[in-house]
């Protein structure tokens, strides 16, 4: 039995790696995507373009504005002279944010009265808008604190000390890049396996296989192993890049991480082979993989938290192996989560993998043509 599985595995590897196109599909897009995602997929805002409409000439307003300019997050793009200029600058997306300081600003401040600052935000992209507002609010709060200290006036009766654990500078790259390990491993293993049986069916080699003494279990194993090794290799490359190129801390144990990777790849292969055994042509296989991958990625918590979804979708994500793997990745990388805390993520993936592999094996022989 092992001889046959071994022969099949060797053949799969040869077939996959001898073909220039499939070699490219397996290795190049993932690396390009890693770089693009790693650099482009970020929610952190830099260079927020803002415009200033300052009706006040006092030093306080200048100080406040210089804090904006010096923060590193904001870039001033225009100075406005009247209220009518505000609307075009936002409409045309020249500035995301307009800071409007009224004429009484300095005087009020000096008198100890609260002086308002108006911030107008372009809400077309609500997330960017909200983040930009948060950045602005932080700057204003800082300003308030120094102002109170300097003027000796009592500040608010309590003050807020905020700290972020696991990711002290709140860099979204720390959140996104470990997720990419899961995303790309899923894409590659699913594509490799989803097309493997369909390709054999299309080329007629599957019939040739079925008339040999090989058993469905052996076919499953022979088809699983190459995807498994490629998945592991792919994941390892990306993990190395994550740690050494993107400088993201790996705080937990590598063993725990690889337990997760192995279970996750098994579940992904299970789904891939299941698609494969249902598809008659490679095109159907590709379409099937696509139909699985898009929702799986969206509903995994990769970019947006599952907690924000409506309840019925949250329930649906329980079927998605990537969901569990995301928790494991971020847990191990950033939180240093120990093995026992992740058990509830491990077993669902194992179940998903086993169920799918079993069904796929059954379908190999019983699927009606």
């Amino acid at each position, binding site marked *: 039995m092992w001889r046959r599985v071994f022969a099949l595995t060797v053949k799969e590897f040869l077939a996959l790696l001898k073909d220039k196109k499939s070699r490219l599909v397996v290795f190049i897009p993932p690396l390009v995507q890693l770089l693009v995602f790693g650099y482009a997929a970020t929610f952190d805002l830099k260079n927020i373009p803002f415009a200033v409409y300052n009706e006040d000439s006092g030093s306080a307003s200048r100080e406040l504005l210089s804090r904006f300019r010096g923060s590193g997050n904001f870039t001033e793009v225009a100075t406005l002279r009247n209220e009518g200029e505000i609307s075009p600058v936002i409409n045309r997306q020249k500035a995301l944010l307009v800071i409007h300081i009224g004429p009484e600003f300095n005087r009020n401040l000096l008198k100890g009265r609260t002086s308002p600052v108006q911030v107008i935000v372009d809400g077309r992209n609500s997330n960017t808008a909200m983040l930009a507002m948060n950045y602005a609010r932080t700057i204003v709060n800082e300003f308030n604190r120094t102002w109170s200290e300097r003027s000796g006036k009592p500040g608010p009766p309590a003050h807020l000390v905020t700290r972020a654990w696991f990711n002290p500078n709140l860099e979204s790259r720390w959140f996104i890049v470990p997720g990419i390990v899961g995303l790309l491993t899923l894409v590659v293993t699913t594509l490799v396996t989803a097309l493997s049986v369909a390709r054999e069916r299309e*080329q007629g080699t599957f019939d040739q296989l079925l008339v040999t003494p090989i058993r469905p279990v052996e076919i499953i194993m022979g088809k699983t192993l190459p995807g498994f090794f490629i998945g592991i290799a792919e994941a390892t490359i990306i993990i190395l890049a994550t740690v050494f190129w993107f400088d993201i801390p790996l705080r937990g144990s590598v063993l725990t991480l690889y337990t997760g990777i192995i279970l996750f790849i098994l579940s992904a292969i299970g789904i891939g082979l299941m698609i494969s055994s249902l598809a008659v042509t490679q095109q159907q296989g590709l379409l099937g993989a696509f139909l699985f991958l898009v929702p799986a990625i969206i509903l995994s918590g990769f970019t947006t938290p599952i907690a924000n979804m409506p309840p019925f979708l949250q329930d649906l994500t329980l079927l998605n192996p990537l969901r569990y793997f995301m928790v494991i990745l971020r847990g191990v990388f950033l939180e240093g989560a120990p093995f026992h805390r992740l058990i509830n993520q491990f077993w669902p993936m194992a179940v998903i993998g086993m169920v799918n592999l079993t069904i796929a094996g059954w379908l190999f022989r019983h699927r009606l043509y």
Partner: protein
Amino acid sequence: MADLQLQGICKAGSGDAIITLLNVSKSFVTGKRTIQALDNLSARVQGCMITGLVGPDGSGKTTLMRLIAGLLEPDKGTVTALGRDATAESLLVQASIGYMPQRFGLYEDLSVSENLNLYADLQGVPGDARQDRFQELMHMTGLGPFVSRLAGRLSGGMKQKLGLACTLVRSPQLLLLDEPTVGVDPVSRRELWSIVSRLVREEGMSVLLSTSYLDEAENCTEVIMMFEGQILGQDRPAKFSSTMEGRTFTVSVPDMKGRILQKKLLLREDVTDAIVQGDRVRLVMRTQGNPDASALVPGAPDITLRPVQPRFEDAFISVLRQQRSARITDREADMKPGPSPGGNGGNVIEVKNLKRRFGDFYAVKGVTFSVERGEVFGLLGPNGAGKSTTFRILCGLLPPTEGMLSVAGHDLRRAPSAARAHIGYMSQKFSLYGNLSVRENLRFFISVYGFTGNAGQKKIQWALDQFELGDYAESTSNDLSLGHKQRLAMACSLMHEPDILFLDEHTSGVDPLARREFWHRINALAEQGVTVLVTTHFMEEADYCDRLAIMTAGEVLALGTPAEIKSGVRSAEIPEPTMEDAFISLIQTSARGERSS
């Protein structure tokens, strides 16, 4: 009026060339190999008649067609069709020719009439003239009752006829047909031919047609024989056969199987060709003159030798044999690497009332037959007759809907996997791993059958020697020629010494020489006690079988030895029926029976 026009276009036999090729060369690059498809070829094709383009697979027939249709540019030389340069003025040439590629691009999800309308639009047939033309075409092709059926649901023969109709929507001056009868059953084949000859006769059309069926070459006015991108000869078919005068005979020896006689004959140096025809063998000698009958086969004094009319095929094989020195030697004696399991008689395959349903359509409706050990059994029938379905059920690839079957005592679908080690299977199309090398394919299949290490290596070496693949061991299978691919496929299905061999249309698309080679191997295997089950739509191949079943529409029409089947249709009109005659007559009888019931 029509006659006037006819004379305006061309005069048959006047020597006016409708196609002229001058020093044309064309090569393609596939993978690392460069294939010289056409090599400095010059030819003239005359109008108002059917010119046949004959040659083995890969001789450049399709490339030549595509050059004339302006679909390819020659590397060198000029191609002129209808007086215009086919490369520079391709749009104009295309406006007055009809071209039917080997796989005509029918839109399978369009109905018959929608396909016709599309091509009428593309060819600019005005709306009022269209209906008359369609009527005529439907009448001609017999597709009238199927106008609203989707093209994908038509049988192979009907598809070809529709393809022809689509190229004829605007009666072209020159019609190019690339292997129009491949995979078409004999009845449809005859119909296609009668349509084409009518077009030439009545509409004064010029036709250039390529074919790998050599009997069709005899229907052409003139034949161009091609080989490896060059022209070996161009003449009337009768001229070709006349060179074989006095070299062709049939031989028979009582109580000697045809294929054993054939093998003995082929071992002789002075024999060019010998093919089995039931219990007789058709013999082509190297030189003219009556051979000494008693000396032909040692130990067979009661041999009968009768001279017969030479055929085009004899000339073709004879010319090819001169080109390719490859001779059938006695290496087939060693076909099977190990000792044969022996055994004597007994049914190895048994099928009773086998049925298979797809949806509400029965592909196989109650088939019953049995095959003895060491027998070559043929399943014969047109496309869609249910041969392949029966085949797949026997191999365990499809479950039957109803009925009993046993292959070597097992139902392969439920049998333990070890039972499958006793069968070999070679499917219709090349089904090995294309991007693996020859050696890698062999190694994979032999290890799947459980031979590793030394034993495996030995088997691989045996296969490479036996099938003359040694030189290609490291080349990628996809880059092999069709003939070599078939050899590799056969090697893969034989290496593990199966007791039963399933061959599904393994010779379709293979040239006559390669086909002969395969049959020699099959015969040698049968000699050693291997049971062989083949499907084919080549009527002549039916003659090579010990017994056969003729199938149509999922039913067995006739079952027996080739001689029995042929004698069943003998009548006053056909005193010496060929297998094709038998087939057509059986099918027509069954169709009539259906209509009357």
